[in-house]
């Protein structure tokens, strides 16, 4: 076992999770300024939405191009209810999640009857319809003016979420919850059903998996994630406009997902962090980031379709398999075998 192996083993242990969480908790104390904390909180919010996209696109294999639209729905439901109807933040927040699920269900039962390309094109159109409605339906959405003065989350007098750092911890909490749920789903029989659909509709159906029910469930989960993220976004940024529904956000999220590793558990987080901080450190990129992202997407799908996390897991899984083969042949030769790696070998597929 060399150092590389040890490090990679450590990445897979529960201790790694603790290290990550501790690092995230300590981040505000080591951050250079408040702006960095803000960027990080924003990245967490986006990461939540990307986790949603990973469920329908990564696990289930259906390229959903309306994801940004559902993010915007979450943001607008929260903003409209709080600003125009005087709801409390948390009630509006719950309503935003429910709206995301509800609209997701409606969009899902229509769009998921379509396969592959049809689904992608259809959801592109759904996303655009959402954008147009937000932009034009002025009585409801304030049109192109957008909505300002959105309240921050209610801290019940204990915390003040208008401050960046408390909000950072709030976003972190939701992000951790999102990853936790995503992990539950990914590693369960439910996630296996989704992945079977990703291989092929025909295969999944022949294994007795109800395509429509599973796809709609995955879709509703993903839109709920998106709208919850959107609602948090509205509470953080505190003003929103039709640009929130621009399809560009969907493309951004696809980039995050692809860089991190589509279909993997940690991919959405890794991808969002990497790209967010890359864009931050190359400020000039902000406006023209697509000059880099565009070719990046192309290069990734051609050469590294599994992204950072997927490539790592693939590399590791092969090593484990090789180690086990070697272990076996040693046993066969009746030599003293080293501690078997089998114990730590949770199947890569659980994560990949």
């Amino acid at each position, binding site marked *: 076992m060399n150092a590389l192996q040890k490090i990679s083993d450590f990445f897979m242990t529960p201790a790694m999770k603790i290290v990550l969480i501790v690092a995230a908790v300590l981040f505000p104390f080591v951050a250079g300024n408040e702006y960095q904390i803000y960027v990080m909180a924003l990245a967490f919010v986006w990461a939540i939405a990307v986790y949603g996209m990973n469920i329908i696109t990564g696990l289930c294999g259906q390229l959903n191009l309306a994801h940004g639209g559902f993010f915007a729905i979450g943001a607008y439901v929260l903003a409209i209810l709080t600003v125009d109807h005087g709801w409390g933040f948390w009630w509006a927040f719950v309503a935003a999640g429910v709206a995301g699920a509800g609209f997701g269900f409606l969009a899902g039962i229509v769009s998921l009857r379509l396969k592959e390309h049809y689904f992608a094109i259809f959801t592109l159109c759904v996303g*655009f319809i959402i954008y147009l409605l937000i932009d034009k339906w002025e009585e409801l959405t304030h049109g192109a003016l957008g909505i300002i003065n959105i309240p921050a989350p209610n801290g019940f007098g204990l915390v003040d979420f208008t401050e960046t750092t408390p909000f950072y911890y709030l976003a972190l909490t939701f992000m951790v919850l999102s990853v936790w749920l995503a992990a539950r789903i990914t590693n369960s029989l439910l996630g296996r059903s989704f992945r079977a659909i990703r291989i092929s509709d025909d295969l999944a159906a022949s294994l007795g998996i109800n395509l429509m029910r599973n796809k709609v469930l995955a879709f509703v989960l993903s839109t709920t994630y998106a709208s919850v993220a959107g609602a948090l976004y509205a509470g953080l940024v505190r003003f929103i406009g039709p640009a929130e529904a621009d399809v560009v956000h969907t493309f951004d999220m696809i980039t995050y997902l692809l860089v991190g590793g589509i279909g993997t558990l940690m991919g959405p987080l890794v991808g969002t962090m990497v790209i967010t901080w890359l864009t931050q450190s190359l400020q000039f990129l902000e406006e023209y*980031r697509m000059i880099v992202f565009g070719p990046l997407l192309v290069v990734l*799908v051609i050469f590294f379709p599994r992204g950072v996390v997927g490539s790592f897991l693939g590399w590791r899984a092969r090593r484990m398999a090789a180690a086990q083969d070697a272990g076996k042949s040693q046993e066969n030769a009746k030599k003293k075998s080293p501690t078997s790696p089998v114990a730590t070998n949770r199947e890569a597929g659980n994560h990949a």
Partner: protein
Amino acid sequence: MQDHANSVAASQYRGGIALDLFLQQVLNGLTLGSIYGLVALGLTLVYGILHVPNFAHGALYMVGAYVSYITMVDFGANYWIAMIASAISVAVLAVLCERLVFNPLREAPPIHDKIAAIGIMLFLEAMVQMKFGAEFRRMPTPYTDILDVAGMTIPAQRVLIIIGAFALMAVLHLFLKKTMTGSTIVAMAQNREGAFLVGIDANRVAMMTFAISGVLAAVGATLFAPINLVYPAMGHLLIMKAFVIIILGGMGSIPGAIVGGLIIGFAEAFGGFYISTDYKDIIAFALLVLILSVKPTGLFTKGVR
């Protein structure tokens, strides 16, 4: 943005008597429909041959408009020269996309080529925006006359669009029917595996198809841009409508693209006029949602695949 562009186009024709207005809408529908048809044709050809929904097609259209614009404004060239320059450049660009991106992805899972196409689109738009800015430009045209036909005022450019688009469709039809290369393309569109068995050079056909789709996009853009505006996002809405059209007409079907283009063109012209200009752009998508909810395989497909 889009509104502005559309109202410019529409405002020229407001006023006059009711029947006149009706005929104006017919003309509008025909203009829109022929351009939509051209763009959708390129998209459907590429889909038929390679089964790639080319999300970058709208960006090719946009690049076509910019090339024409530059050739005319910066180099002072003639409109038709500009159109040819644009057609050639976009054809080359399209072939490059095929070679560098879609060809390597032939065996990849279906989600990959879609993402790659989106990548190309984002790149082209960002490049153009960096170079020329996001502002709207107006493409000059030598055909600014207003024709007066039976009391109807018809701008010459619109006539040119309709005639030009249908002429190009006719040329394409002849090419596909009468030439060897053309019939190979049709054969391959109908049966990919079969075509491979018969020993068709799939690479050549793929490049050819992309080149044709590029030419269609560039010519469409050069025809349409003078009565519309030129800006980096000009292809967005168009590509989505073109997708709606080829889904309605059956992905890969050539007559379907033309008929579908006209349907959407007329629906928008009349819907925009008699219902609401604000929501005019939704009409195409509402139609799509409606039709796909009833018939998930599209309007004109015979329930195959």
